[in-house]
């Protein structure tokens, strides 16, 4: 399993009596987009939370390019180059779009007190942030309040902000939730654009179109365990996976494409 960008090694997470993640082992390979599918409650978001440092694993280990990050703190993991987005979009609502991205400037985030001595609107910082906004198509909205953004733009802002730290690994948690076909297509294109800058992507999704278009490999989870692993076609046609999703698939697709 060496040479992988991210290794999840028998990771377990319990909440009281409930096992959210059950001795899960998987890896994210160099330059790949790994899709994670599974019914609600399968442990997908819990897994993302563990990787990104929001939860602490109860067992097992996580290695990022060989570096053991299991016990690292939230901000340490962020600085190492793992970035994420959230299921329920969490932009800084009362700050402008530009400020959202500038706040994520890794030089300042890592040395906050030192940033006191820097000019607040240093041209270099502004240019860097604007470049990211242009990349994600948000340049016109730079001075708008993030809280006023339409859904799709807010999602893009989250991604731009996540990219500001020049991460190596990007974790996307159901980015297409609540989007229609057109927005989803745009999202697929955006993720495609980002791939060039990243060493790996983990994509949690219910939308099978996105999985098919974006993911190189897919892992299916249920009850915190790995149900199946392989190419998108293989996994999505796997009988166990279909059974877990039975009844969910149609309504899921319908909900994802209103």
């Amino acid at each position, binding site marked *: 399993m060496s040479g992988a960008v991210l290794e999840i090694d028998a990771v377990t997470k319990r*909440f*009281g009596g409930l096992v959210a993640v059950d001795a899960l082992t998987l890896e994210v390979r160099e330059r790949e987009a790994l899709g994670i599918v599974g019914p609600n409650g399968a442990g997908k978001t819990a897994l993302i*939370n563990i990787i990104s*440092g*929001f*939860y*602490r694993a109860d067992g097992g280990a996580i290695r990022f390019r060989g570096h053991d990050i299991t016990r690292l*703190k*939230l*901000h340490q993991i962020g600085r190492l180059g793992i970035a994420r987005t959230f299921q329920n979009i969490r932009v800084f609502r009362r700050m402008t779009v530009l400020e959202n991205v500038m706040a994520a400037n890794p030089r300042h985030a890592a040395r906050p007190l030192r940033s006191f001595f820097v000019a607040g609107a240093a041209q270099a910082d502004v240019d860097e942030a604007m470049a990211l906004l242009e990349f994600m198509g948000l340049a016109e909205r730079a001075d708008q309040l993030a809280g006023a953004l339409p859904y799709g733009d807010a999602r893009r802002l989250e991604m731009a902000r996540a990219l500001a730290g020049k991460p190596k690994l990007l974790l996307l948690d159901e980015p297409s939730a609540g989007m229609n076909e057109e927005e989803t297509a745009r999202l697929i294109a955006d993720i495609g654009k980002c791939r060039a800058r990243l060493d790996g992507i983990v994509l949690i999704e219910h939308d099978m179109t996105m999985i098919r278009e974006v993911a190189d490999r897919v892992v299916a989870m249920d009850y915190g365990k790995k149900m199946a692993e392989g190419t998108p076609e293989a996994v999505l046609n796997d009988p166990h996976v279909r059974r877990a999703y039975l009844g969910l698939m149609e309504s899921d697709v319908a909900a994802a494409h209103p």
Partner: protein
Amino acid sequence: MLAEQLINGLVLGAMYALIAIGYSLVFGVLDKLTFAHSEIFMFGGYVGVATVALGLPIWWAIPAVILVAGCLGLMVEFVSFRKFTTPDGHITAALSSFAIGIVLIDLTQKIWGTDPVDLGIPRSFYTASVAMWGIRLAYIKLAIFGVTLAIMVGLQLMIMKSRIGRNIRAVAESTVSATLLGIDVKRVTQQTFFIASALAGIAGLMLAMRGGFADSNVGLSFALKALAIMAIGGMGDVRGAMVGGLVIGMLEALAFQFDLGKLSEVLVWALMIAVLLVRPTGLLGRALAREVRA
């Protein structure tokens, strides 16, 4: 004498417990702290002064203080708590109730002056004592302990058995679920404040009766400790408040016995801080799962 100090400790603890229960009830129902509580306690003593000044027997002050303190509590709920329902509403409520508290102190001092005021009851009232098992037990201390014990037992019964008690417990558990069950949360909140404040008022009256005088400073110097006690015993946990009050009262009396009295003040707060750091919900409260490692 050790035995006498222990009795003092029980009496002291009983008063702490009554005040702490009040904090607990309000926190349980609203998840907020009331900083007017300590001043309602303080005012209880002055209700006693007023009762005697009107020529009535001192024991009439008990129903009087229940009414007066209870109503003050209702007023505090309306001004300082009703409107502040946002996530950081607990700070606004704390500051607002603190503001009401200092108004109460000022008004009290304007009416009765800043020095302690004699209750106006004959000295024999609190010096009369009985000898039992080789120690002198002042009647007044027995009476105070008896009254507070009866109140605590009554309160436990009420919380466990009566409809009001059940409603309070339901709202304390979950406001949303309680509403779904058809409970009028606003009403229950008012009832909780009335009860909590009445308890504080009674405790204040008891303190005044123990010493023979009412003092406008006791809110800050005495009652606020009960807040620390509640935090130690369990935020929002009535049993924790009761047990915590009695234990801390005893420990404080013991500290005075061994001439460490001044230390006890610092220690109670230090203990509270220690408990809050390790187990924020208090010793008897349910542990919250705090997941983030930040």
